[in-house]
C-alpha cells in the first residue's frame, strides 16, 4: 500500500511537454532510495494550475510545488524519501480557489437519492427554519446573509420575501425560475441535474418564510433531464413528508409542481413567467404592482432564481453571519459562472464574489484555447456587455460590472480572442433579442430591429459614420422606454462594444475592413502563389467551384464566384490561402 502519491504535470505551454521526462527522473530518485513501493508517482492530465512550469503535488498532504526546476526535483524527492516537511521556498500558494456553495453537492452525491442529500446536511436548514426560527426570523437571517438574486438584476432576496410576507392574502405562491435562456449559460441546469434537492429545499424554506401554500418549478422543456430529476426529487420529498401536509410534523403545508416553459427567452422575466404559468401568452406587464404584492393569479408571489434558492439551505442552517463573511461589501456569497467560448477549460466555476475576471479565466480556466491574448470577455449574455482585456483585473460583483457597462446576469462568461469581431458579436446578441422579443412594446420591437439593420449594414460594408450616432440614440430610447428587462438591456452589447471598441466599428465603416476577419462581406481570400504546393485540395473542396486552375498552372480564386465560406482557408495544409 502506498503512503504517498505524487502527481506530476508540466504546465508550460511554450516548450515541449516535459512531464514524462520529469516522471522518469523522479521515479529514478525514488528507486535509488528504495522508496518506490512506499511512494507512487503519477502523470496527470490536468493539475489545476496553468502556465506554472512543472507542477508537483503531494497527496494526501496536498502540498503543491510549481515552477519546479530539474535541480529541485531531487530535493523534493529526497524530502519525501526522508519524510521531511514540505520545502517552504518551493511551495506554491494558489491565489484563487473555487468556493463551492451552490455547487456543494454537484458531482458528489447521487441526485436521485434523497438520503445522500440528507446525509450531506440536507433539509437541516428547513428543520431549523420551521422549528427554531419561524418565518420572521428566517427573513431576518436571509437579510443578515444579504444574498442577492442570482438571476441577473441582483435584487436583495430578503426584500422580495419581506414584501410578500407582509401582504395578507389567503393564498401565496413561490416560484423557482429555472427558465435559463442566455446563450452559453448553463449553471442552473447543472445545479438542477446535480443537486435538485438543494433547490427544492430552498423553495420550501422560501414558501415557509412568506407563508405560501403552493410552489412551482418553472423549467424549460429543453432541459428534459433536469425536469426528470426535479420530478423525482419532488416525489421523494412527498414520500418523506418534506412536502404535502404537515411538513416534518409541523402545521406547515406545501404542494409543489413543475410547469414547463416552451423555451421563450422572455419568459425568464418574472411577469412574463407568471403569464405563462397562468396559461396565457408569455408577455411582460408593467410593474408595479410587483409580483411580491400581486403576482400569480393576483396573489403575492415570490420568484427566485435556481442558484439563489440553492444557496438558501446552507444560509439558513449555518446562519446569515456565516454567509455574509463570503464575498464583497455589497455582494455576498459566491457566484457560479459558466465559462465558455475560446477558453481552454470551459465549464462551471464557483468563486467568492470579488475575484477578478483574470483570476477566473486565466488562473482557473487556463486562459485562451490558442494560448494567445484575451481580447474581451462577454458577461451577462444578451443583456450584458463586453469587458476589454485592459479591465480584466476588475473584481467581479454586481456594481463593478454595471459600472463597466455590462451586468453580472445569470453568470455566463464568454471568452473572446483576436479572431472575434466586435461588431459581429453584438450583432449576434441583438439578433437573439430581436428573435426573442415578444413584440408587445414598440421600443423593443422596432428599436431592436432597426439597430440590427444598422449593424448588418456596417458588417456588409455599407456603413456610414452617422450610423453610430443612430445606434446610440436608439439604444438610449430602448433603455428608457422598453417595458421589461429584455428591451431595456438588449442594446447593452452594442453600447459596450461602441464604448471599448469604437475603432473597430470605424475600421468597418471607413476602411471597409474587418480586423478580425469575421465579416464575410469585408474579407477576400487569395492564393499565395509562393506557398502554394498545387495540391488542388482547395479546388476540390470549394462548394461553388470558384477556384480555377490545375496542378500544372497553379490555382487562383475567382472573386465574383467566391461566397467567402472559408472552406479553402480551412483545408489548405500549407497556409497558402490568404484572408484579409
Amino acid at each position, binding site marked *: *500500500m*502506498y503512503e504517498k*502519491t505524487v*502527481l506530476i504535470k508540466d504546465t508550460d505551454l511554450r516548450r515541449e511537454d516535459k512531464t514524462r521526462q520529469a*516522471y522518469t527522473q523522479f521515479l529514478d530518485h525514488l528507486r535509488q532510495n528504495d522508496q518506490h513501493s512506499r511512494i*507512487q508517482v*503519477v*502523470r*496527470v*492530465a*490536468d*493539475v*489545476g*494550475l496553468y502556465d506554472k512550469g512543472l507542477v508537483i*503535488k503531494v*497527496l*494526501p498532504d496536498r502540498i*503543491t510545488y510549481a515552477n519546479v526546476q530539474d535541480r529541485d526535483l531531487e530535493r523534493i524527492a529526497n524530502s519525501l524519501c526522508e519524510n521531511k516537511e514540505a520545502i517552504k521556498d518551493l511551495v506554491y500558494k*494558489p491565489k484563487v*480557489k*473555487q468556493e*463551492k456553495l451552490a*455547487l456543494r*453537492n*454537484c*458531482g*458528489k*452525491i*447521487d*441526485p436521485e437519492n434523497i438520503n*445522500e442529500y*440528507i*446525509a450531506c*446536511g*440536507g*433539509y*437541516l436548514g428547513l*428543520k431549523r427554519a420551521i*422549528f427554531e426560527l419561524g418565518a420572521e426570523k428566517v427573513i431576518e437571517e436571509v437579510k443578515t446573509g444579504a444574498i442577492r438574486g442570482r438571476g441577473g438584476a441582483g435584487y436583495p432576496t430578503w426584500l422580495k420575501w419581506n414584501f410578500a410576507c407582509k401582504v395578507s392574502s389567503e393564498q401565496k405562491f413561490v416560484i423557482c425560475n429555472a427558465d435559463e435562456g442566455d446563450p452559453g449559460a*448553463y449553471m442552473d*441546469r*447543472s445545479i438542477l*441535474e*446535480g*443537486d435538485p434537492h438543494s433547490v427544492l429545499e430552498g423553495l420550501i424554506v422560501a414558501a415557509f418564510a412568506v407563508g405560501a401554500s403552493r410552489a412551482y418549478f418553472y423549467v424549460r422543456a429543453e*432541459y428534459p*433531464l*433536469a425536469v426528470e430529476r426535479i420530478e423525482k426529487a419532488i416525489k421523494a420529498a412527498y414520500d*418523506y*413528508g*418534506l412536502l404535502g401536509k*404537515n411538513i*416534518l*410534523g409541523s402545521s406547515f403545508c406545501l404542494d409543489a409542481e413543475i410547469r414547463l416553459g416552451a423555451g421563450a427567452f422572455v419568459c425568464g422575466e418574472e411577469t412574463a413567467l407568471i403569464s405563462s404559468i397562468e396559461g396565457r401568452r408569455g408577455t411582460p406587464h408593467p410593474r408595479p404592482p410587483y409580483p411580491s404584492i400581486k403576482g400569480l393569479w393576483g396573489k403575492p408571489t415570490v420568484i427566485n432564481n435556481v442558484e439563489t434558492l440553492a444557496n438558501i439551505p446552507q444560509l439558513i442552517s449555518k446562519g446569515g453571519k456565516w454567509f455574509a463573511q463570503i464575498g464583497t461589501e455589497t455582494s455576498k456569497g459566491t457566484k457560479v459562472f459558466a465559462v465558455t467560448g475560446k477558453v*481552454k*477549460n*470551459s*465549464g*462551471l466555476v*464557483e468563486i467568492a464574489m470579488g475575484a477578478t475576471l483574470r483570476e477566473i479565466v486565466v488562473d482557473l480556466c487556463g486562459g485562451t484555447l490558442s494560448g494567445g491574448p484575451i481580447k474581451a470577455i462577454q458577461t451577462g449574455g444578451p443583456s450584458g456587455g463586453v469587458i476589454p482585456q485592459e479591465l480584466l483585473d476588475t473584481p467581479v460583483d454586481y456594481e463593478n460590472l454595471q459600472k463597466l457597462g455590462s451586468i453580472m446576469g445569470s453568470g455566463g462568461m464568454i471568452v473572446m480572442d483576436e479572431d472575434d469581431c466586435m461588431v459581429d458579436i453584438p450583432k449576434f446578441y441583438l439578433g437573439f433579442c430581436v428573435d426573442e422579443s415578444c413584440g408587445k412594446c414598440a421600443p423593443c420591437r422596432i428599436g431592436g430591429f432597426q439597430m440590427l439593420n444598422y449593424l448588418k449594414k456596417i458588417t456588409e460594408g455599407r456603413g456610414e459614420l452617422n450610423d453610430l450616432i443612430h445606434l446610440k440614440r436608439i439604444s438610449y430610447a430602448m433603455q428608457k422606454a422598453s417595458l421589461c428587462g429584455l428591451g431595456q438591456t438588449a442594446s447593452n452589447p452594442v453600447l459596450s462594444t461602441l464604448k471599448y471598441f469604437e475603432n473597430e466599428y470605424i475600421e468597418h465603416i471607413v476602411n471597409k475592413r474587418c480586423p478580425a476577419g469575421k465579416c464575410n462581406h469585408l474579407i477576400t481570400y487569395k492564393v499565395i502563389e509562393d506557398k502554394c504546393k498545387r495540391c488542388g485540395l482547395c479546388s476540390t473542396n470549394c462548394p461553388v467551384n470558384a477556384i480555377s486552375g490545375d496542378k500544372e498552372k497553379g490555382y487562383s480564386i475567382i472573386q465574383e464566384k467566391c461566397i467567402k465560406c472559408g472552406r479553402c482557408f480551412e483545408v489548405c495544409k500549407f497556409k497558402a490561402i490568404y484572408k484579409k
Partner: protein
Amino acid sequence: MAKLTPDELEKISKSNHEKSSNWIKVGMSTCGIAAGAGEIFDFLLEEVKKRNLQIEVKKCGCQGNCYAEPLVEVSVEGLPAVTYGKVNKEVATKIIEKHVIAKMLVNDYIYDSLT
C-alpha cells in the same frame, strides 16, 4: 414510505456519514451524457459485475470540469480519491484493472483541480 419527523431526519443525516470508501462515480449530467458518460456507466457496471468486484458504481451530477467529460471519480481504500477525465472504454478498463484491482493510479488521465 413513512413520513419523517425532525428526529428521524437528524438520524439519516448522521447515520449515513460513515459511507464506504469504495465507489466509482460517473458524472451523469447533460454535459457528461453528451460526451458519452451513459455508455461508460453501463460499461463500468458490467465490468464490476463480470469480475465480481466489491465496489459500488454510482451516478452523480456535473463537477464543473465540463471540458473533460466524461468524468469518473474513483475512491478505493488506501488510495486518494481522484477524478479521471475524457474517459473512454479503454481508460475505463484501465481504471478497473489498474486502479480498482491492482490499486495503482492510472497515468495520464487524472484531472486534479485545486479544490
